[in-house]
């Protein structure tokens, strides 16, 4: 089974618009939105939810006031400044609580509860391009890495049951927890960048991350005509580092038009960028092997 992950380091380079187009072009696949924090792929694919599941992960401390003697041990032990005292009453700031259980374990009165957290919702859906798994972490929640892992497991399960050999995933920006959870064990990564100092800087970091996990990476330079000199520097970088350059795409307002119409850009009839994206997808399929 091949798992192709579209990531970028920098946000806003066009990951999701391109993933939607590839989802349109690819045969027999499961589509996966691994940006569980600010997912956007569903805005283009308009999924119909077939299964809606609660995502529970981790726990959070809750002080039962009846038993609390105000000794302050919990506040002292907490490394995350999540416990504070006001007028002798101790309480937990849930936004800062890491769920480490230290306060629970060291409370001499054993008066701190540790309920499981309900952190988000995940979905198995059908779209015009096939089955999609996606999620929405509740705003401000933690555990995005675990939710990413869960979605990937679910995608693999559905793929196996239905004899599907491709999982196409849209990833999160950055190089942190959710991206690491998306990458480990993926078949290959497509890195979408743009010819700007930020685009290049962030590409180098996310490419290094791929090397770190020994994931093969290819590169797409999006909006390449915004700064051709910078695009050439990125091209050179890819050659030196042996990352195949899969496509150079122009800056085209039709991408926004497709977004407003809730369509993949390749669905909007014959456009120049649509043609380039079709070629790019062929190259990605060869690259993925």
């Amino acid at each position, binding site marked *: 089974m091949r798992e192709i992950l579209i990531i970028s*380091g*920098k*946000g*806003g*380079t066009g990951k*999701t618009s391109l993933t939607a187009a590839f989802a349109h072009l690819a045969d027999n696949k499961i589509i996966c939105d691994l940006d569980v*924090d*600010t997912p*956007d792929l569903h*805005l283009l694919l308009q999924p119909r939810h077939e299964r809606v599941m609660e995502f529970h992960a*981790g*726990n959070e401390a809750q002080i039962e006031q009846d038993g609390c003697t105000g000794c302050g041990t919990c506040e002292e*032990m907490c*490394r*995350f400044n999540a416990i504070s005292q006001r007028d002798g009453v101790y309480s937990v700031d849930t*936004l*800062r609580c*890491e*769920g*480490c*259980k*230290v306060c629970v*374990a*060291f409370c001499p009165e054993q008066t701190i509860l540790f309920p499981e957290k309900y952190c988000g919702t995940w979905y198995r859906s059908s779209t015009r391009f096939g089955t999609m798994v996606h999620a929405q*972490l509740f*705003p*401000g*929640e*933690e555990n*995005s*890495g675990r939710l990413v892992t869960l979605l990937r497991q679910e995608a693999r399960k559905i793929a196996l049951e239905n004899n599907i050999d491709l999982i196409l995933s849209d990833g*999160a*920006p*950055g*190089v*942190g*927890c959710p991206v*690491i*959870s998306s990458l480990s064990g993926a078949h290959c990564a497509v890195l979408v960048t*743009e*010819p*700007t*100092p*930020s685009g290049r*800087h*962030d590409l180098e*970091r996310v490419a*290094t*991350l791929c090397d*770190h996990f020994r994931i093969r990476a290819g590169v797409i330079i999006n*909006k390449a005509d*915004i*700064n051709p000199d*910078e695009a050439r520097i990125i091209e050179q970088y890819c050659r030196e580092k042996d990352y195949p350059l899969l496509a150079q795409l122009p*800056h085209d*307002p039709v991408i*926004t038009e497709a*977004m*407003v119409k*809730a369509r993949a850009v390749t669905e909007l009839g014959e456009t120049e960028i649509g043609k380039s994206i079709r070629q790019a997808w062929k190259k990605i399929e060869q690259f993925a092997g």
Partner: protein
Amino acid sequence: MIISVASGKGGTGKTTVTASLSAVWDAPLLAVDLDVEEPNLHLFLHPEPAPPIKAWMEVPELNADKCTLCRDCVELCQFKALSIMISSLTLYPDMCHGCGGCIAICEQHALRPGKRELGVMYQSRAGKINFLMGTLRVGEAMSPPFIEQVKKRALKTIRETKQDVIVDAPPGVSCPAIASVIDSDVIVLVTDATPFGLYDFKLAWKSFSPLGKPMGAVINRAGLGTRHIYDFCREKNIPLLAEIPFDRSIAEAYSQGRIITDVSGELKAIFSSLREKIRALGSTTPPKEVDHA
């Protein structure tokens, strides 16, 4: 005053706004890049070179001779950072969240504080501006503890020098974004008017509202997308602080690492006006309404 420039969606122009606002700020300023996964502010402010300051997190180290395999640490750890394999305790420092619980609970003192590198900080000057950034070590999963350390350094700096702070926050609305904006006085949400921008803007507004801070919107690439973002801001009483027009010359200037206030007098005026509106917003009381929908 501490101002956080945040957004749900990435690539909406946080760094452009932070850099431009810093350039027109007319009081002593510390500009801080808390987008530690992909810091970019330095590419526009061009700070002077500075020696790296390494940031560490406490993780346990094992003295196996003292370990009696009692399992207390394994049972306490919520992050699977320790396990007993065959007949020895194995540590997975990459999984550790640094809570210190295992070290505190071990009666045999078989665990002692060690450390893991989170990333590197740089502090220097960019012209008149004081500059501070954090760069997360590639391969490190946990940005929030590192963000806390960069923030701590920033707060220490302003205690000594009494300057304003502008923070370039990471994208998203989960723990790294919350950790970045939680100590600020004003949150500036940068978005574009595309459907993705709107959806993520709503998420950001929902996430940050419970913090009870004054919030305002900057609409970037105005003219591109739809009018829904304006309706949403009106409906929720989110003040529109600035609109940056959609203009290819701005995208080109950005792609050359230029601060866009240099592109035209009009843009400079937009950011000077933004500065004054942020100041006014910072002296208001935050809205009490919180959407629980």
